[in-house]
Structures are given as structure tokens and as C-alpha cells.
């Protein structure tokens, strides 16, 4: 990692320079104002940067060197499943037959693309134990929104749309759950967790009723714990006439072991960028396909990829009960290619090994770290677990300080202060692709920091010390927002 500042692209270069030009035009050039009335034209060209190709390359390569990434080092960011992203997936997505096709080409000229999508949909149905898929949602949050729309459309078709106005979420849920429910026009009912970190059945029983449209749940939940009452939870919600939504953020724990369908869920979204190893890209693109049970199939977004009697594939728009569209075209196709490649590469045995190893790795770390940090729920965990920095807080060191100190050791910090129900939470997800050496090195770092908290807390409180910049002033950023460069 370099430690020097990279100047803004706007302050580099020189007037008249350019890094790329199209080939000279080979058609007769007309005067622009004979083609377009002058009022529509731009007065002067936008003041974009003027740099040579090399200057641009250096600028961005130097910027890239300021980033931590999975390909650089360990990334135990809970709930984000920062596993290794195999390179063959990238090679597949870059094939011209995938990267360079237009969404409106005649269907017979994109049969390979449609076949891939249809099969990926089938695979996700099998993995979830459900019936039909839509690959359209562009991200997990959009999958949540689309899934809730499907639930809403179902209740409306049953004539219960007016009564069923509430969506229940546990207090441990991802922020997107209540935000998606609100965006779907629902009232959000928050239900507390029980002493074991699971859903409080009594509170759930009290919360459900004729107004319940559905329950959104992550299982394993955001504490990394499998809710053993899941079948009972499903019964309670279904008996009240509600449906169950599975937030697939934590699906890396259950591949080939347990399926949302058997748990009793009616709708699932998967985060292909988590479970199915498509790269996170610094915050997208992801993909959040949804899979639903048979009763909900008519309501899926349009279009849906179908296989016709003659074994060709087509896009079906003729679905009168559909919720409509949530995205243009067919979703984040390039991401779908990568996930498809991953599933085909691993197969059923490989996928099961993924979850088994992810859970093994997490429990190993949990066992090693337990003596040094508070553990709010002392149970076998799934693919991730949540520690509390309470003990360290008593010494005047916050979880945020611990997180920043980890950066000094070349490790990305875990997810911190989430879930909200754990004080000073540290959520750790090692994933299956890390070696035992890396896990042991991580334990070493964590125990070193725990010791520093006792012996030399200042070094932790002032961390990080070895990163390109020190701890940044977020208050200043928010009080005096500087959100763009302006020409002087």
C-alpha cells in the first residue's frame, strides 16, 4: 500500500491533452447547428480533465493501491461474505458472447444467454427449495423490495390487500429489511429477540394477526445463529395468514444443508455477490435474484425467462398478475454469468463443502477468541459470530478503536456496531476460502490487540497508525459537506 496522497484528477494534466480519441469520422461533416437548433447546444464543453493515457493509468493504479481488497488480504467483514472471487468467473463474463450482446437483439440471436439465465433460475430454485425465480433485482435490497411486492400482490389477489398492511422484522434485522418494507408501503412492526438470540415466539405470536402481510427473517440470523424454532415461526406466521420472506444475506451457511423452502419460507432473495462469489466491486454491482413458492409465481416481475416446448428459450412478458418491472432489461446479467459459472464449477458437493467449511472456520475462530472478548450468545455459530467489546469498553477502548487497530495489521475490520442489539458488536465472518494460517494469524492479531487494551490502550485508541490516512474526521465531513470538486 502506498501512503502518499493522490492528487485529484482535476488538478492534473494540461489544457489540450487527451487520453483517448475516437477514429476520425468518415462521414460528411455537417455544421452542428444545421442539425440541432442552437438553443439545444451546450455553450461550452464541460470542464472535464485533460490528461494523457499514462497520466490516467497512473492516477487510477495509484488510487487502487490505497484499497484493501479480498485479493490483498483477509476481509472478515460479517454479513458481507468476502470470499475469494475465482478468476474463471471473470473470464467467462468477459467473453464477447456475454459482455457484448444487446438486450433487445432478436431472441434467436441470444439463445446462449437466455439458456444460462433459465438454468441459473432453476439452480437457485433447487438451492432454496422453492419453485420459480426472477433474476431481475439488481441487488439484495432491490430483491427485498421485489419480494415484498410479490407478497403484496398475492394478498391483493386474495382480496386481503387492504387489511394486510404490516411487515414484521426482528430487532436484529439488516437495516434494509425495514427500509424495504416501508418503501413497499408497509408498516414495520419490530419484534425483540429472545435470550438465545432467536426470535421471541411469544412476542411474535402477539405481533401477528389479520394485519400481518409477512415476516422478514435472516436464518442464520445476524448474530450468526440458526433459529431452531424456524418451523414453529413459519407455522405461527402462516396460521395468521402471513407469508415468510427469507433474507438470503447469510445463505453461505446453509448450501446443500438446509433450504428456506423446507424451513417454511415463501420468498427468498440471494445476494449473488456474497454466497455465489461474484466480486463486490468496491460496492456493487451485485445481484439480488428472488425465488418464490408456486402460489407466488404469477406475481414475479416481468419478463421471466421461459423454456419453450421446442427447447428454445424466450422472455415471457405476458403475465397479467405480475408486479411489473423493478429494473430495466433483465437484471445484472454480467453478475449472473459469474454466479452461474461458480455454481457449475462447484456442483452440489462443492457447494455443500462451502457451507461446511465456512461454518467450521467461524466456529474455530469463535473458540479461539472466546477467552479474550465477551460473547453475548455462547452457542455453536453458523458462518459468522458476534463478539462484544464490552470488556474493552470498560477499559476506555471502544469497538471502533479495535476495528481501526486491526487495519494496522493489514486486516480489514469486522462489521462493527451491528447487529444493534449487541453492545459494542464485532461481527466476524471468515468465509471458507481462507487458510488455517490466515485464521491463526487473525487470532494472533486479535489477542495482541486485546493485550494492548490492557497494557497500552493509547496505541489502540489512536489507531490506525500505518494506513494511507489516519482516522478521518467524519463530523467535519457531515457538518461542512464537500461533495465535489469545483473549477476555480
Amino acid at each position, binding site marked *: 500500500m502506498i501512503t502518499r496522497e493522490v492528487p485529484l484528477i482535476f488538478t492534473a*494534466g494540461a489544457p489540450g491533452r487527451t*487520453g483517448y480519441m*475516437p477514429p476520425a469520422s468518415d462521414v460528411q*461533416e455537417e455544421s*452542428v447547428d444545421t442539425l440541432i437548433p442552437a438553443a*439545444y447546444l*451546450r455553450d461550452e*464543453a*464541460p470542464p*472535464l480533465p485533460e490528461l494523457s493515457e499514462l497520466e490516467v493509468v497512473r492516477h*487510477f493504479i495509484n488510487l487502487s493501491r*490505497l*484499497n484493501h481488497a*479480498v*485479493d490483498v488480504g483477509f476481509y472478515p467483514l460479517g454479513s458481507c461474505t468476502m470470499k475469494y472471487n475465482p478468476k474463471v468467473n471473470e473470464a467467462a463474463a468477459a467473453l464477447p*458472447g*456475454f459482455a*457484448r450482446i*444487446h*438486450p*433487445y437483439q432478436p431472441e434467436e440471436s441470444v439463445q446462449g444467454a437466455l*439458456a444460462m439465465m433459465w438454468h441459473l433460475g432453476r439452480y437457485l430454485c433447487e*438451492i432454496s427449495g422453492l419453485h420459480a425465480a426472477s433474476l431481475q433485482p*439488481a441487488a439484495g435490497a432491490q430483491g427485498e423490495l421485489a419480494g415484498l411486492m410479490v407478497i403484496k400482490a398475492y394478498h391483493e389477489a386474495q382480496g386481503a390487500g387492504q387489511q394486510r398492511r404490516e411487515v414484521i422484522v426482528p430487532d436484529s434485522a439488516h*437495516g*434494509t429489511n425495514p*427500509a424495504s418494507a416501508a*418503501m413497499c*408501503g408497509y408498516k414495520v412492526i419490530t419484534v425483540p429477540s429472545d435470550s438465545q438470540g432467536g426470535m421471541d415466539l411469544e412476542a411474535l405470536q402477539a405481533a401477528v394477526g389479520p394485519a400481518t402481510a409477512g415476516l422478514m427473517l435472516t436464518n442464520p440470523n445476524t448474530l450468526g*445463529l440458526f433459529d431452531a424454532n424456524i418451523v414453529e415461526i413459519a407455522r405461527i406466521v402462516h396460521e395468521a395468514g402471513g407469508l415468510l420472506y427469507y433474507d438470503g444475506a447469510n445463505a453461505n451457511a446453509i448450501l446443500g444443508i*438446509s433450504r428456506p423452502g423446507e424451513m417454511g419460507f415463501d420468498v427468498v432473495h440471494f445476494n449473488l455477490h456474497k454466497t455465489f462469489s461474484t*466480486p463486490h466491486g*468496491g*460496492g*456493487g454491482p451485485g445481484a439480488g435474484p428472488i425465488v418464490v413458492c408456486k402460489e407466488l409465481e404469477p406475481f414475479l416481475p416481468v419478463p421471466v425467462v421461459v423454456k419453450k416446448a421446442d427447447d428454445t428459450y424466450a422472455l415471457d412478458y405476458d403475465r397479467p398478475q405480475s408486479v411489473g418491472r423493478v*429494473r*430495466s432489461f433483465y437484471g445484472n446479467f*454480467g453478475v449472473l454469468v459469474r454466479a452461474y*459459472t461458480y455454481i457449475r464449477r462447484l456442483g452440489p458437493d462443492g*457447494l455443500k463443502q462451502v457451507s*461446511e*467449511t465456512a461454518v*467450521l472456520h467461524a466456529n*474455530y475462530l469463535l*473458540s479461539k477468541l472466546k477467552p479474550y472478548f465477551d460473547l453475548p450468545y455462547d452457542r455453536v455459530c453458523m458462518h459468522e459470530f458476534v463478539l462484544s467489546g464490552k470488556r474493552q469498553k470498560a477499559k476506555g477502548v471502544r469497538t471502533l478503536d479495535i476495528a481501526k487497530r486491526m487495519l494496522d495489521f493489514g486486516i480489514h*475490520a469486522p462489521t462493527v456496531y451491528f447487529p444493534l442489539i449487541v453492545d459494542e458488536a464485532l461481527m466476524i465472518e471468515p468465509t*471458507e476460502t481462507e*487458510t*488455517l494460517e490466515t485464521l491463526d494469524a487473525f487470532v494472533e492479531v486479535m489477542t495482541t490487540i486485546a493485550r494492548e487494551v490492557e497494557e497500552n490502550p493509547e496505541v489502540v485508541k489512536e489507531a490506525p497508525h500505518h*494506513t*494511507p*490516512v*489516519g482516522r*478521518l474526521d467524519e463530523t467535519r*465531513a*457531515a457538518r461542512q*459537506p*464537500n*461533495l465535489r470538486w469545483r*473549477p476555480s
Partner: protein
Amino acid sequence: MSYIPTTDAERQRMLAEIGVKSVDDLFAEIPSAARLRQPLNLPAGCSEAEVFSHLKTLAAQNADLDTYACFMGGGVYDHLIPAALTDIVSRNEFVTAYTPYQPEVSQGVLQSIYEFQSLICLLTQMDVANASVYDGASACAEAALLACNQTRRGTILMAEGLHPEYRAVVQTYLEQQDLKTVIVPMQNGTINIEALSDLLTSEVAGVIVQHPNFFGNLEAVYDIGKAVHAAGAIYIACVDPISLGVLAPPGAYDADIAVGDGQSLGNQPSFGGPSFGFMAVKEALLRRLPGRIAGETIDHSGRRGFVLTLQTREQHIRRERAASNICTNQALNALCATVYLSLLGKQGLAAVANQCLQKAHYAQKQLCALPGWRAAFSQASFYQEFTLECDHDIDAVNQRLLEHKIIGGLPLARFDQRYANLALFCVTEARTRSEIDRLVDVLRTL
């Protein structure tokens, strides 16, 4: 072999540390009713070589734009992509990083987002931009929701010239919250300004106008803006970012929100995704802008740095009262745009935009001279897309063109039967004169 490094011996060591006998014991909490009894019914796994060969076979069944000359647009455009861009955005430190939750080790992503926001503002002549949303359609939907929240009104007008799929997405989003969408009809290929005036009641929160519109035509953006503002509504302009190399930016015609799809800025067509949507607003609307926003600040020793800021707008803090449920943006696709605009710069972008304009007009003239083909909206000015009316069956024409390694104009009947016999052609800088002439020659022989 599943990219898993753990050996049997290591597994035993870990199990011993945990204090269980087998990996299966770790799953004991899963009730038997929720356990999968049989293996997943999926194709068996295979080697890297085998899977790549399979993917190549699938890819080969698609007519790709390296082999076929594409005259189709409608929201996805075949522009030239600099080799340096492809190289830069494949950099592992960009590709395999995540949302910059720890800014001290994410300055590359954060600075590039800040530069992206700046570039979008420069292009659109707006005050502030976010770090991107999913696509142009969801950008329109988010803008519509923003307008409703800001004005506390419940109706959004959408010009008929807004991409039909964008209109569909806006409608899907809005109807969940019982907000209304109304289409402002078109007359001769552009918005019917009288109809707009009639529809602009005190219930209208915002108006979405695409410019150039879906049919390729330039809208009367200045007059529309005046009408929209006179009614106290929010003016939302949906624009093609490359067109802003020659066309007046949304800031010039007083748009309150500028949105659009960014695929054309260095992203591959990729069957329609992933790309990104951009969203830029006037300062007054900043607090309602959804999604991530990067901002400049300093560290304890005064060094400049960037962080995600104004986060209280977002779902992880405000939960059900957030501006939107959006979590991540489309960072890598937005990075393509940042690199693209940096490489082309002031001159390059102007040259590309001008060339699209010139080549499209050259092609339109040739095509309109053919028997059975004529401009659908002869009065309207256009940029790089134009709509033709055709006496032939357009799908059959496109079949014929495929045989000649050409992807023809977009048959608009797929969106609305009222558009039967209309085809939308697109000509970018990537098309050569000889490709255009070949298209004309094949159509002449019909």
C-alpha cells in the same frame, strides 16, 4: 476442490479446538424438518477448463457486437471502450474491495467516488450527485419518490417519450406507496406541451422528461421547465451522459434533478446490465438524495481524505424512515464512467458526442431515401437515435439483417402496439461509414 484450502488434517485440528467430533455436529441446531436429506439436484462440479469450455459454448450461441454491427440503442449503446479503461477497472484492488466501510483502507474507492460525483456534476451542471444507483430506471423511480417527499404531493407525470421500461419501473415503485403516475402524451414525437399544461395540477409532485427522448427526439426542455416550475413541481430530466458533450446540460434548463443510465460511459452492453444510474440534484434537495455519498475531510494530522458522509439519510441508520432502501451502489460501473470521462476528457467527449450526431444524421438521410422507409417524426430534431416508419415487417427485416451480420433497428411494437411499424435506429461513433452503407444496401434489396 471448491476454492477451499482446508486439508483433512487441518479440519481435524479445528474440530478438536472447537470440541466437536464432526462438521455435522456443528449443524445439530438445525431441526430435522429443515434439514436437506438428499444432495442438491444440480449438475456435478467440474474443473476450471471444463466449466470455461461450457461457458464458451453458451457464449458462442449469442450474436456478439464484435461480430455484428449494431444499430440498436433504446437505452444500451455500443460505444468504443478504451483499452486502458478495461485494464484499469480489472484491477483487483477495485474489483474485490467492498463498500468503503473503513475509509482509512478504502481511499482509492472513496476518492474515485468523489471524482465520479464531481464529473457527473460537471457534465449535468448540477450541484451535487450521489455515488450512483442501480440503473437509469431506478434513478427515475428514486427521483420520483424524492419529488413526492419534497413537495408532499402524490402524482408524478412521465412524458410518453420516457423509456417505456423506465416508466414501468417508476410505476412499480410508486404504486407501492399509493402514489400516482400519469403519462403525458406525445405529439409528433415530442411531449404535447398543451397536454402537459392541462395535467400540471397542484397534485403534481414532479415531471420526468427524457432528453433526447426514447424516440431519439429533442424535447422542448426550456419551455417544459418553465411550465413545471410554474406549477410548483420538481423538474426531473433523464439524459444520455455522452450527449452532454454537445447538448445543453440539465442545469442550463433549470432541472431540479438530473438522472440517467451510465452504461454508455465505458460499460459493456452486457445484455442490459450491470450498468449504473446517476442522480444529481440542486443543493436544496441534497438531504433527500438516496444512496451513498462520498465527501472530503481530513484526518487527525490534517491530511486530506474521503469518507462516506451524510449517512443518516440511509437505511442502516434511519431504517424504515430512510430516504431509500438502497444499500450499495454500482461502484465498479461508476468507476468505468470515471475512467472513461478522464481518458476522453474535454476534447474526447466532445468528439465522441459530435461523431454520434454526425453519423446518425448521415445514416438517417440514407435510410429515409429508401423506398418504404420514412422518418416517423419529420419535424423533430434528433441526436444519435431516430425513429423510422417502415412498410415492411420489421422483425422479418431484422432476421434478414442478422444474416448479413447486422443488428437492425429496435422494433417498437414490443413496447406498444401503437408503435407497430416503427423502428428505432441508433448510430454511435463505433459504427463506420462502410457499416452504415452496408445496412442501407441490405435494406435496399428487400
